[in-house]
């Protein structure tokens, strides 16, 4: 276990150093969710066409936009792996005695830290827009855990895609193809009970839905957590474990 932590933390450390030296990508990725909140959220809040119970529409979509930024910042993580493969970094890592699961877990944790930076941006924007945000330590801890877990899920999914497609061009195409359907087939910008039954079924097998459900209760004062935190975190943990196991199998194929 100690060895696993040491190997994972080595990967996390270098990812964070690189992120701190060049945060351009992170800043660029923060723009989109801000636009969703400030423009889309405010305009739709005026329409009042989507019934969100006691909660304002802006408060309703804030956790959804936070989850969206986690999804968008993690789902293109695999492109970095393709770069690393082309530069020989993957080969060097795979020749080391470090466990492949530790290397990939480290990547997932590093993606989680990126997600947390996105969460801070969303919190600041939401506070400026007078959204009632929960700031109690338990809620913050829950948000940090769910953002780390959500980022880990989508970053690992992205790694799997990278291992399969192996080129940047194909990866970009597939990444674009996946993100918007995953976002719209979730409870990010409308409640599950407004969806047609076929879409609700898809949403219920979409891990993004469970991330948003957890965040909705943890981020917003009076936010409704429909499935229960236990189920939300259990689903996310199971999905992450399965994806990590698949990624561990596929990762060595990048070196061939």
């Amino acid at each position, binding site marked *: 276990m100690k*060895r696993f932590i*040491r*190997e994972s*933390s*080595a990967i996390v*450390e*270098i990812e964070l*150093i*690189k992120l701190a*030296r*060049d945060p351009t990508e992170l800043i660029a990725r923060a723009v989109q969710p801000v636009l969703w909140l400030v423009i889309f959220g405010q305009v739709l809040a005026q329409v009042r066409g989507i019934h969100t119970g006691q909660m304002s529409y802006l408060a309703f979509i804030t956790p959804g936009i936070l989850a969206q930024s986690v999804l968008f910042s993690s789902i293109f993580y695999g492109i970095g792996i393709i770069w690393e493969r*082309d*530069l*020989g*970094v993957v*080969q*060097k*890592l*795979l*020749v*080391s*005695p*470090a466990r492949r699961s530790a290397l990939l877990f480290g990547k997932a944790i590093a993606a989680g830290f990126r997600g947390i930076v996105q969460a801070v941006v969303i919190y600041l924007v939401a506070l400026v827009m007078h959204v009632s945000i929960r700031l109690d330590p338990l809620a913050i801890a829950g948000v940090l855990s769910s953002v780390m877990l959500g980022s880990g899920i989508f970053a690992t999914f992205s790694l799997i895609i990278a291992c399969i497609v192996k080129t940047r061009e194909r990866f970009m195409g597939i990444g674009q193809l996946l993100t918007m359907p995953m976002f719209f087939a979730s409870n990010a910008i409308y409640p599950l009970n407004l969806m047609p039954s076929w879409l609700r079924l898809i949403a219920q097998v979409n891990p993004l839905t469970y991330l948003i459900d957890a965040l909705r209760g943890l981020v917003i004062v009076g936010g409704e957590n429909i499935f229960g935190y236990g189920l939300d975190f259990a689903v996310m943990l199971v999905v992450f474990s399965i994806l990590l196991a698949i990624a561990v199998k596929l990762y*060595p194929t990048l*070196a*061939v």
Partner: protein
Amino acid sequence: MNTAASRRADKFAIQVSELTRRFGHLTAVDHIELQVPYGEIFGLLGANGAGKSTLIKMLTTLLPPTSGSAEVGGFSVIRSPGEVRRRIGYVSQLLSADGALTGYENLRLSAKLYGLHKAERNALIGDALDFMGLTDSAHKLVKTYSGGMIRRLELAQAMLHRPAILFLDEPTLGLDPIARHTVWDRLLDLRRDYGMTVLITTHDMEEAETLCDKLAILHKGRISVAGKPVELRAGLGANKTMNDVFSHYAGGLIHDGGTFSAVAQTRRTAHRLG
């Protein structure tokens, strides 16, 4: 750590028997037999697509063989890949040092992945930087290094844990003559000071003759000849050069082999070296 001094009693650092790798209908490595004694610098020569990189990938556990067996440092690459990885260092044909990190940070990453204890980590990193003449540049970003410095840093990463065996896949590709000679000097020092066994692939006949105790020339996935450079030259007659030897056993000097991705990789490396 697996120092050369603590090596096993086995005579051979690398023992390969009937090793084969197929990709669909293509046989990249075809029933190769190879034995490299401890402490030897062994060169693998061959045209693009001859099977050198595929062979080195199998020996470094990056690629499973289709059939046959290979032992590195006394352990099977198939049954005990983890034990093999602990005993080897590897410098890829590509420039794999991370340009966004400093030389020191690249080395610290390697030290952690190879499980070097915190207490000895800094001393070993300092030794490796000193050995490769990079102490003054340790805290500069690698993207500001010259090609020769990057290669020396990669050698420092590969030797940090004192492996018994070093695998070098065209380590001087794209380097200018001075940088190339500096890398050769460091490799000879590594063998002298640490007794490391080195398996090196190269296209460079001067490199092969200067560095290697013994050579094997690969052609279409098979070893067409193996021996000491001087013996290989003498075998063809008086006044023959290594170019003549290569031309004779590898099917000509000018070769259009090699996959698109292999050529692209080579060009990318040359481009990064400036």
